[in-house]
């Protein structure tokens, strides 16, 4: 016993000493960083832009499906043919232009000739051909589904790429152009099996910034590419971009206020924008969304397979109240599945289902549902609402939906679970109602195909819908080359989905990004939280202040 006692203080002392050393070491580091980067900011050309993100890079291979941080970092390194500009329209990036030939069966991209890989080789049509063929060969990521119709790819000269399609598909060039990363053929072809290629060192890129070092859990340092034609003057004004990991958004906001970072890559939660109210250095930039939040009904549930039930559910969620409280007014209502951001395709004749729990209750009663025990809830009408615990807004919505649905006699069970559990349940169809948010749809046709085709090519047919009518409508629209007829067909599908109430759109969110305007300016924000302020194009335009 006495032995223990005598040994213990010693151990404690050394532990405390260790702790103290660690703390000193850490603070020493952060002090160094602070002085280093602020002096960098003053000297102009040497400015380091520090961006906060919540997660690590999980995969450095740009050809595979990507998480948010992955795509931010990799999109800055590997060019795309097209980008999405401030107005949600496609704009040229590596491709100067594209056109269809042969009645829509050949898509031709003309590339710029001034993009260069950081090892000195030019970016050529062969690189594009190689990237697309690799994706098709290994069926990589979500781009593989967009290349379904490709029969062959040709690169007749260094700046021309031709995709020959098995059938005309109107949004082919837009979808592939925006989503597909172009990788250097001369580097990637040596890697062997590209579905297993980690690409985690010696990076060669052609974007404005290329990774130099990656320290998991801490930071990702990217160096400027001195030959980036889309930057003013041919090279970005910022010499280095550094992504820092802050798993908690509260900490990230404090880091921005303290000057530890210059930009939050993730949007500021609507409830937290007050944090920056009295801080004149910090500016908030508002951008629209390319996706939307929704409640999607599993058609394999025998009650949810009935149109009246889905309509009643749509009438028991108060989307207006959700927008004004959860989003603090920062969002728009939607009626059908096509977001108003696609103004050409959004069917404006549609009205959202009104919030009317009493009406919903009457509808269910006339559909034959009974409340035998008189508890105000219909018997057997119980659904689980699955959602991702880490999504602050959606969990709040589910909480409110549950309360308002009870007024309509529908009993809902809140099944908001940890993110990975949620994802695996979504994948295996273990839910009644799926409450989630779609991130980015770059065009309505691809969206409708991925969400409603019974073959489920995009893997996000969360309705698990198998409807011959919908299949027919979608395939018919997809093969339409006449622009006006194409728009009408999309609007018609918008109407059908709305009437059937396959889903209840909740809102299109306005995202707000916070940055330190006293240090950097010139961001060109694109819609959605995936693109936001950190697209390759935006980072190339950023200038240090002063």
């Amino acid at each position, binding site marked *: 016993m006495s032995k223990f006692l005598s040994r213990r203080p010693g151990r404690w002392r050394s532990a405390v000493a260790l702790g103290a050393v660690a703390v000193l070491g850490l603070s020493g580091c952060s002090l160094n960083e602070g002085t280093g980067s602020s002096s960098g900011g003053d000297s102009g050309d040497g400015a380091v832009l520090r961006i906060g993100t919540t997660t690590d890079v999980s995969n450095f291979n740009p050809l595979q499906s990507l998480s948010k941080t992955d795509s931010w970092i990799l999109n800055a390194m590997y060019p795309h043919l097209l980008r999405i500009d401030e107005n949600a329209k496609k704009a040229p990036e590596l491709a100067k232009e594209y056109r269809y030939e042969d009645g829509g069966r050949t898509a031709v991209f003309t590339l710029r000739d001034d993009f260069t890989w950081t090892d000195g080789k030019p970016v050529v049509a062969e690189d594009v051909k190689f990237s697309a063929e690799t994706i098709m060969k290994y069926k990589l990521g979500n781009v593989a589904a967009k290349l379904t119709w490709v029969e062959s790819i040709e690169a007749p000269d260094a700046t021309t790429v031709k995709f020959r399609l098995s059938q005309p598909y109107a949004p082919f060039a837009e979808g592939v152009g925006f989503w597909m990363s172009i990788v250097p053929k001369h580097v990637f072809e040596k890697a062997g099996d590209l579905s297993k290629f980690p690409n985690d060192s010696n990076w060669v890129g052609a974007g404005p910034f290329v990774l130099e070092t990656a320290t998991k859990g801490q930071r990702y340092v990217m160096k400027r590419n001195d030959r980036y034609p889309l930057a003013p003057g041919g090279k970005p004004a910022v010499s280095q971009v550094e992504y820092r990991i802050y798993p908690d958004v*509260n900490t990230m906001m404090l880091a921005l206020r303290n000057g530890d970072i210059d930009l939050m890559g993730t949007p500021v939660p609507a*409830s937290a924008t007050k*944090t920056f109210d009295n801080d004149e250095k910090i500016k908030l930039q508002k951008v629209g969304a390319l996706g939307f939040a929704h409640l999607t009904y599993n058609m394999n549930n025998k009650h949810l397979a009935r149109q009246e039930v889905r309509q009643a559910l749509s009438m028991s969620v108060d989307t207006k109240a959700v927008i004004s409280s959860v989003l603090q007014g920062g969002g728009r209502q939607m009626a059908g599945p096509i977001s108003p951001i696609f103004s050409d395709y959004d069917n404006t004749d549609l009205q959202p289902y009104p919030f009317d729990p009493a009406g919903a209750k009457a509808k269910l009663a006339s559909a034959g549902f009974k409340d035998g025990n008189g508890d105000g809830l219909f018997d057997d009408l119980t659904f689980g609402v699955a959602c991702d*615990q*880490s999504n602050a807004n959606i969990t709040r919505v589910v909480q409110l939906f549950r309360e308002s649905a009870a007024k309509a006699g529908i009993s809902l069970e809140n099944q908001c679970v940890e993110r990975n559990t949620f994802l695996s349940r979504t994948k295996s169809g273990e839910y009644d109602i799926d409450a989630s948010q779609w991130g980015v749809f770059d065009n309505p046709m691809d969206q409708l195909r991925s969400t409603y085709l019974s073959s489920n090519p995009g893997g996000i047919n969360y309705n698990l819908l198998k409807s011959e009518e919908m299949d027919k409508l979608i395939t018919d629209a997809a093969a339409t080359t006449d622009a006006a007829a194409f728009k009408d067909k999309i609007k018609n599908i918008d109407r059908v989905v709305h009437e059937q109430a396959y889903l209840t759109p909740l809102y299109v969110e306005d995202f707000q990004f916070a940055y330190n305007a006293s240090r950097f300016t010139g961001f060109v924000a694109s819609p959605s939280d995936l693109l936001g302020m950190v697209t390759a194009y935006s980072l190339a335009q950023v200038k240090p202040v002063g």
Partner: protein
Amino acid sequence: MEPRSREREVGTVSAPVLTEQTAPVVSAARPVWRDYLRQPSAWLSVTVLGLMVLLAVGAPLIAVEPGGTGPDVLQPPSGRHWFGTDDLGQDIFAQVVWGTRTSLVIGVAASLIALVLGTAIGLLSAYFRPVDAVGTVITDVMLALPTLPLMIMLAAVVNPSVWTLTVIIGVFAWPEVARLIRSQGLVVTAMPYIDGARVLGATAWRIVTREILPAVISLMVVSVLLTASRAVISEAGLSFLGLGDPDAWSWGRILLNAQRSGVVAIAWWQTLFPSLAILVLVLAATVAGMRFNDIRDPRRNGG
């Protein structure tokens, strides 16, 4: 039940050792409680625990169940909202009051699970040598397991509800109880009156339940209190990590809401009050347990 059976035993066979050993346990029960409550820290903590129970039981009378949205978003504490409001305009005081229910239910139920399992395994280990070998190994393994990650894993796999959480926390909390009970049980098992009972032909079941168990009851009271306070912390932790019951208000969930909606820096009231509630409950349970432990400690009582 207990005294009568013992009297009968004492009466039918003369076993002076037995009488001497058991008499203080039975007859001293009342003065022990009186002594216990005479200590200011003890009665204070018991009062706090009592108030918490009242708060939990009477929650619907004290505050309306938080729900819906309100116009006063992120208001600091005021006469209208004692603990301020959250980002949906819900009253934090109401959330804390309703959260007391979940915390107490889980704390008590989980510690009962731990107590039943722990006492059973502890007593069996103390009395049956062959069981001891296995029991000790299992207890050691359980104590060495990284409990929190395992709880997180389990809670992520099952559907989160108050009951699954209770079971998970209870199942991971028994080893401490088992170890405590076993060590006390070993001391008791070695006492002459146990040998006496054995010689008289008492069955093992009878010896364990009638002779050893009463001698460790006070220790069980202590460990219920300590385990309950740990369970409350575990529940708050799991809820804060998003693994709690999403339909039941709990202190951890209030903290999670603050963290998730990014208002930790601007709405101190949303994190302070639930944290204080956790602190007060855990402190009260711990102090109550420690004081009780002091009281039953013979070295302190001169007995």
